[in-house]
């Protein structure tokens, strides 16, 4: 049942598992139309961890929700397409989408407290989820549930399976949530801030677990987080979002150590680093624009230290920049310029 780990090594050459192209998500209301995601494109290959980073309101979580069809009623994917393997999934009806969700794509949310039903034992929730996706008897599903709990590192799973969520600690509860996401052996897991509610020592344990799952199961993970440290630790590639757009995407070390986009560069030097007291933090003045007031041209232009005339009028497209891609007018003009 487990996929071979071999997929991991050749991740960069393999065909994408998830392919999102020019996805635009809009919200409609009495006050008009808001474009929340604007031409978002990226791909995730089997066995790859793609980190999606950005500040609050950049559209990270919305990107995840759009892929699995969990947009609020007023929101719609209005352009672009989403493919999971060979299948197009952005135009599926609710019933068919529900089959993909859980079966093909597992979901992990931030707060383990609210993603579990407090009134049911962990075992009941596992059995329910397993039998709704896989053709299995309740007894077999329970057995599988115990194995999953063991896989995610819960001690004495044959006993713990009959506990209620509140009987687990925060870290253990998040492991249960991960086990639930893995119930139907999905190929892709979307993890939205999976460790944000946890303490650092517990966070380190959960991150190690996720990495282990990628290695052992060839799982692909879309890891949404605001914590650059978490991304640096776990992701293979990262996509940086700003005001509903991807501004830079590329290999993780590349983007962190020598970012191409001025926003990424600002973000990286704004992060305090261990053992570095003397340095004053670089600050990006101002705030991310609200969705109803995104500046014309490049959305970052009012805050950009390297703004040019063209940035105010023409929206930059993602173009090759160093080892990755950046949506910035600096790049067609001076390809692979200064370091």
């Amino acid at each position, binding site marked *: 049942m487990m996929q071979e780990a071999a997929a991991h090594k050749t991740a960069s050459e393999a065909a994408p598992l998830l392919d999102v192209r020019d996805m635009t998500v809009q919200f409609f209301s009495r006050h008009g139309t808001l474009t929340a995601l604007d031409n978002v494109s990226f791909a995730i290959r089997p066995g790859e961890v793609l980190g999606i980073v950005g500040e609050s309101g950049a559209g990270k979580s919305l990107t995840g929700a759009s892929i699995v069809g969990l947009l609020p009623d007023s929101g719609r994917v209005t352009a672009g397409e989403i493919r999971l393997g060979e299948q197009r999934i952005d135009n599926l009806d609710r019933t068919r989408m529900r089959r993909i969700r859980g079966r093909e794509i597992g979901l992990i949310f931030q707060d383990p407290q609210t993603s579990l039903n407090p009134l049911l034992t962990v075992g009941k929730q596992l059995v329910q989820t397993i039998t709704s996706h896989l053709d299995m008897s309740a007894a077999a599903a329970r057995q599988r549930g115990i194995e999953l709990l063991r896989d995610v590192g819960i001690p004495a799973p044959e006993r713990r399976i009959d506990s209620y969520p509140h009987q687990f600690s925060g*870290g253990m509860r998040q492991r249960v949530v991960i086990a639930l996401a893995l119930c139907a052996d999905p190929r892709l897991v979307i993890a939205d801030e999976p460790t944000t509610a946890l303490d650092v020592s*517990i966070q380190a344990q959960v991150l190690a677990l996720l990495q282990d799952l990628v290695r052992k199961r060839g799982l692909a993970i879309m890891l949404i987080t605001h914590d650059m440290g978490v991304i640096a630790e776990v992701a293979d590639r990262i996509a940086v979002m700003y005001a509903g757009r991807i501004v830079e995407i590329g290999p993780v070390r590349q983007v962190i150590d020598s970012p191409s986009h001025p926003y990424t560069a600002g*973000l990286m030097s704004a992060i305090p*680093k261990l053992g570095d007291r003397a340095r004053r*933090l670089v600050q990006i003045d101002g705030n991310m624009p609200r969705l109803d007031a995104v500046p014309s041209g490049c959305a970052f232009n009012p805050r950009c230290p390297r703004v040019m005339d063209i940035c105010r009028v023409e929206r930059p497209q993602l173009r090759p920049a160093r080892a990755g891609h950046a949506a910035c007018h600096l790049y067609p003009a001076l390809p692979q310029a200064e370091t």
Partner: protein
Amino acid sequence: MMVAQTQRPDRAASTPQLVVKDLRKQFDLTRSVAGRLLGHQQYLKAIDGLDIEIARGTTFSLVGESGCGKSTVARCIVGIYKPTSGQVLFDGVDIAQMRGRKVMLPVRRRMQMIFQDPYASLNPRWRVSQIIAEPIRTHGLLPDRQAVQKRVDELLVQVGLAPGDGRKYPHEFSGGQRQRISIARALASSPDLIVCDEPTSALDVSVQAQILNLLRDLQEELGLTYLLISHNLAVVAHMSTRLGVMYLGRLVETGDSQLLFGQPLHPYTRMLLSAVPDVGGAAVKRVAIAGDVPNPISPPSGCSFHPRCPFVQDKCRMVPPVPSMVQGRLVACHVLAEHGELPA
């Protein structure tokens, strides 16, 4: 205590701004009156004997995981909680057992606090200028409205806002700007000490950088002393002069921030530091991490870290370690006290 109160506090730079001696705080968790009468009392020892010294113009940080008691320490110091026992010497005067608004007022003026959530800590029905002027009015610092208004405008500028912002309401500001308003309010009474409880935890990194820079600029400009409470070790490393690492209500390691970050000694400090995901990518030597923080209602015997400690010895299970000086910092660890270092 009487002596301390009758003497004029010595304001020479040599007296520490704040000294905390053997601070203890218990919360009574006994549910029913009957239980109380029958003596089935249950206590949570949130702080279990804590000593801190903060020199003027410096930043002392308390770090630790949720439930270690760091916020309780902050609250005991500013007087939101009454400590069960121990001393809090502010400028040499014990304020831990002071009671009553009149006695506390002069101390409160010189000690302010910034809270984590800038959405919850500002009154939504007040204009920003009212919010900032409140400490000035409470302490009767300025004679008339015009002087107050002038001071509010100055404060707004000092924290990077515009004088005109005073007419707005908190909801018109972003999280970072609201935290600036909180800082302006804290500065309004010209305090000596500001207790910052997770001041940037609710903010995005680019905004966090703005606030941290502002706090450091203000410290330099006004000679402020900070007590910083944070779970974010990178923020602490960036801000602190000295550092205290807490575990279940006790300090396990206290010393110079650079020393502790460069060369952590206590097994818990080591574990904590190696657990931080760092963007630096410089492969930190990982220390194996096991287990959870135990329940503080029934903490482990002896050293409360012993069930998670890879270096545990028999003594650790029975006797709580007393902080002792090892390699230039205070460490509460039997193994370190005996051998001066941990086994390789």
